[in-house]
């Protein structure tokens, strides 16, 4: 979950109505925001990835105004159409990064905290909806340093300019290999020879999307007018990002002027709100609360939406930046938030169905009961284990090994095909505990087969100085006879098994079907696990034996 840091005094000022810090703290969770930590007036908040409009103090203040009843209804944005500034798109970008959009934000002022908030917003938008800048990326520039019109085009990798936070010219190749941004996001451009570039009318480089801006247009506390540009590979996605930036900058006190965009596949963004209509009944059907139409409208307005009622239908107006809303169900949630989750009374309706456990659960728990009755202690191991434990220390055949990709943990890379290895590992970790040690585990094991076969195994292991084959065979027979009345046979195996002592292991059969193996564990294997006491064990397949 992305995190935003905010200051209560600044939030209170942005909310700009009569409220208290305590009220703000109390209401935040009901916007769906989790307070991760609080240190005086500084709070860290986790917000849901579907609400990138909550990536700044500005966006959160906008939401708070609604729930606190200070400002309700849609945030109206005016974009002056008279603007003469344009971006022309060269067709060479089509196959690399086809779309660009943008706006001019005018007559605002930013302090250093505001700039910090905008930078965090950019990072969150890049990581989230921008899919690490591949799908969309944003550039904010001091518009007064730019000579319009702009051109969005491509350039070769030896093109030079001074990138942000630098004082010397660098080529594209140098930027990609030397700057942090180049190293982190260069992969987005790895399959192209030329790269996207935004140039102004005097051929100054403004931006090298999606990597880095030019130092020329750095936004500072002196900046009054901002050029917002968003480039990307999906038109909706770049306009989504633009809409969030506009809503945020509006809360920060900016006005907007249209930036005309023309060229292959591109057009000036409209950023229109949209309408969704649905039956008012749907809300009460989902929430279980009888609510008047006017109340629904009021609830939606508290969530910074607009709505009207017409002939038992509710028509909801959704601003461009709320692209998380897909349909009526999302609006029902908005109504619930406006109504207040705390006002929804839980209701316990009797169940019309009778609950039942799964057969596998029932049968497995019978096995567990018998095992405990026989003095065995239950253990739990991971089904995702390591090659070392599963195959190397036990000298088992690893030709059918099933691996996962890119595990963050060395100990969890292979899906287990046996439980016994894990039990040996358990003994190994407990050699300082008192003996006898008698353990069992039931759990899923994996094997290859269209594409993966899963079955449930039972393994038992016993360790003390006088244990032997007979002791473990008694346990095996008893487990299968109790409850299940299954008789099993142990037949000397013709296969060479390095896990067991030669001459002291067998295959386990029920009705001529092999279900597992049993034996005394070989000293060499015990040495591998640093176990200094005799160990016997067996493992059988329960799937197909006591359940399907």
């Amino acid at each position, binding site marked *: 979950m992305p995190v935003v840091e905010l200051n209560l005094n600044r939030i209170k000022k942005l909310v700009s109505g009569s409220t208290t810090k305590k009220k703000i703290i109390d209401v935040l969770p*009901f*916007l*769906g925001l*989790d307070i991760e930590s609080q240190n005086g007036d500084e709070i860290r908040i986790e917000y849901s990835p579907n*609400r990138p409009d909550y990536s700044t103090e500005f966006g959160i203040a906008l939401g708070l105004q609604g729930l606190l009843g200070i400002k309700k209804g849609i945030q109206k944005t005016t974009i002056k159409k008279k603007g003469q500034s344009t971006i022309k798109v060269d067709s060479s970008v089509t196959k690399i990064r086809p779309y660009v959009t943008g706006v001019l934000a005018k007559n605002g002022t930013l302090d250093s905290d505001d700039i910090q908030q905008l930078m965090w917003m950019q990072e969150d938008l890049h990581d*989230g909806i921008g*899919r690490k800048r591949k799908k969309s990326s944003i550039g904010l520039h001091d518009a007064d340093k730019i000579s319009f019109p702009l051109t969005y085009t491509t350039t070769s990798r030896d093109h030079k300019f001074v990138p942000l936070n630098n004082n010397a010219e660098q080529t594209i190749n140098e930027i990609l290999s030397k700057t942090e941004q180049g190293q982190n996001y260069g992969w987005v451009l790895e399959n192209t020879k030329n790269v996207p570039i935004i140039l102004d009318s005097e051929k100054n480089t403004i931006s090298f999307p999606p990597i880095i801006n030019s130092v020329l247009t750095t936004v500072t506390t002196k900046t009054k007018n901002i050029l917002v540009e968003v480039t990307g590979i*999906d038109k909706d996605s770049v306009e989504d990002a633009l809409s969030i930036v506009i809503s945020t900058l509006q809360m920060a006190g900016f006005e907007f002027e249209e930036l005309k965009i023309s060229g292959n596949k591109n057009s000036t963004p409209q950023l229109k709100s949209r309408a969704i209509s649905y039956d008012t009944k749907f809300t009460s*059907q989902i*929430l279980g*609360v009888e609510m008047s139409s006017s109340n629904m409208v009021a609830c939606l307005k508290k969530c910074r939406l607009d709505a009207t009622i017409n002939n038992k239908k509710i028509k909801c107006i959704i601003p461009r930046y709320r692209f998380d809303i*897909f*349909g*009526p*169900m999302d609006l*029902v*949630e908005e109504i*619930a938030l406006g109504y207040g*989750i705390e006002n*929804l*009374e*839980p*209701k*316990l*309706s009797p*169940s*019309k*169905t009778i*609950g*039942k*456990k*799964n057969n596998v659960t029932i049968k497995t*728990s019978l096995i*567990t009961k018998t095992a*405990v009755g*026989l*003095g*065995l*202690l*239950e253990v*739990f191991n*991971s089904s*995702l284990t390591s090659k070392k434990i599963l195959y190397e220390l036990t000298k088992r055949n690893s030709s059918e090994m*099933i691996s*996962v*990709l*890119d*595990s*963050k*943990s060395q*100990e*969890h890379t292979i*899906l287990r095909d046996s439980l016994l290895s894990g039990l040996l590992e358990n003994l190994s970790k*407990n050699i300082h*505990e*008192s003996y006898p040690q008698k*353990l069992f585990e039931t759990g*899923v094991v994996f094997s290859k087969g269209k*594409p*993966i076969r899963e079955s449930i195994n039972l393994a038992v292991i016993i360790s003390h100085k006088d244990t032997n084959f007979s002791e473990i065979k008694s346990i095996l027979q008893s487990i299968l006879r109790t409850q299940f009345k299954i008789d099993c046979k142990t037949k000397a195996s013709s296969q060479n098994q390095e896990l067991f002592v030669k001459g002291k292991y067998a295959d386990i059969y029920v009705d001529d079907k092999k279900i597992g193996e049993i034996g005394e564990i070989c000293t060499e294997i015990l040495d591998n696990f640093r176990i200094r006491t005799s160990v016997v064990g067996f493992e059988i397949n329960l799937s197909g034996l006591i359940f399907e």
Partner: protein
Amino acid sequence: MSQVLHDIEKKIIDSLQKKSEQTPEQLSESTELSIDQVRRGIEWLRLKEFANVIESSKVTVSLGRNGIDSLKNGLPERKLMDLIKDGSKSFEEVRKTLSGAGFNAAIANAKKNGWVNIEKTDSGSTISTKEKPVETPEEKLISLIGDKSIPEEKIENKLALKFLLQRPDYVLQNTEKSKIISLTERASQIDTTLSDIGAIDVEADAALVYAARTHPLKDTIDEIREIFVKLGFSEIQGNLTQSSFWNFDALFTPQDHPARELQDTFYIENLKSQNQASSTQIKQVSKSHSQNWHYDWKLSESQKMVLRTHTTCVTIKYLAEQKPDEARIFSLGRVFRNEKVSYKHLVEFNQIEGIVIGNNTTLRDLMGIQKEFYKQLGLTKIKFWPTFFPYTEPSLQTMVYNEKLGKWIELFGMGIFRPEVTKPLGIDKPVLAWGGGIERIAMLKYELDDVREFYNNNLNWLRTV
């Protein structure tokens, strides 16, 4: 008396009943037990409150090296008197026989005793007998001590002892600690001659044994499963390995969603699902993604095999196949996340998820089920907060107040499956889902602050928790 006594204990009691206060050494003598046996027996009796042990210390004196020499040959002053008994002698002559410190001591003490005359001449001093030397108190004391060690308190002439102690290495003082053993009132009435054949020491500690038992986490899983069953839910099961189709696509998670990346999800190497879903299901899901998320949905992405990241894939598959009109279903089992293992994160943990499908089932009903579930677990202070899950809308999370931690903690989540999830799979009724991780609840129950303990299989913990 149920107390069974060891032979050693009986012998000691016997002896103490005859003579009430004895040292261990005396007991060793009277019982003919070795001193070690006696010491052990005394300790047992003391623990059983049959014996009192009083520790005391006693000072004894014995002769040192010079004292032993004097016992045999007389004190230096006596030796001097022997030398000059036949006439006066010069210091030179005397010194030859009484060398070193002995000479000075002899002259000084003989003078002090008034035994000698000393004349100084030009050729040196001479010494002669003045008076017949009688036996001194110090000499008497040396003879009294002899080769024994006697208690200091028994020496009457304290002054003589003081003088001897001032002279080097004549008399040694030793402090001896000793124990005096006596019987408690209870023990003085024990008849040690009574037979106790067949009786055992029922009060002694016995060896520890550990009960075999089910895993503590299994107990919590079973408890939670029982509550679901009680609330009318039936259990379904599914595989831990799933196609991306059921784990993600069917749940409306776009194919470029960060949750689907290698760094969050375990993908299985080189294995693809072939018949993960029907062609209609694939077509409809693909359409839902393209229309709502605006991208080209790829079949090959949906075929990638993953370790399920939630049990919801089992539920949604069941719903898509069975399309029940009315049901309460749950699935419980392990789920996986590609995380760094820490005190709060595991790569593999247990999750339970229940769904309610039916007419007239509302969010309030789902909240009611939650409330009852927590009540059954003994958690009564709960509240609901809005939250976000990719495949439910509206979505809520339960906050439960933990008295011990003194704060609200997040437990199960819930919500209504998005129409974008249900419609493409032909499910036309609202599906209410709820669930969460089981280890979190088990951690509260067992007061653990490190979730890894459940899978460490530390026998000491498993045997005693």
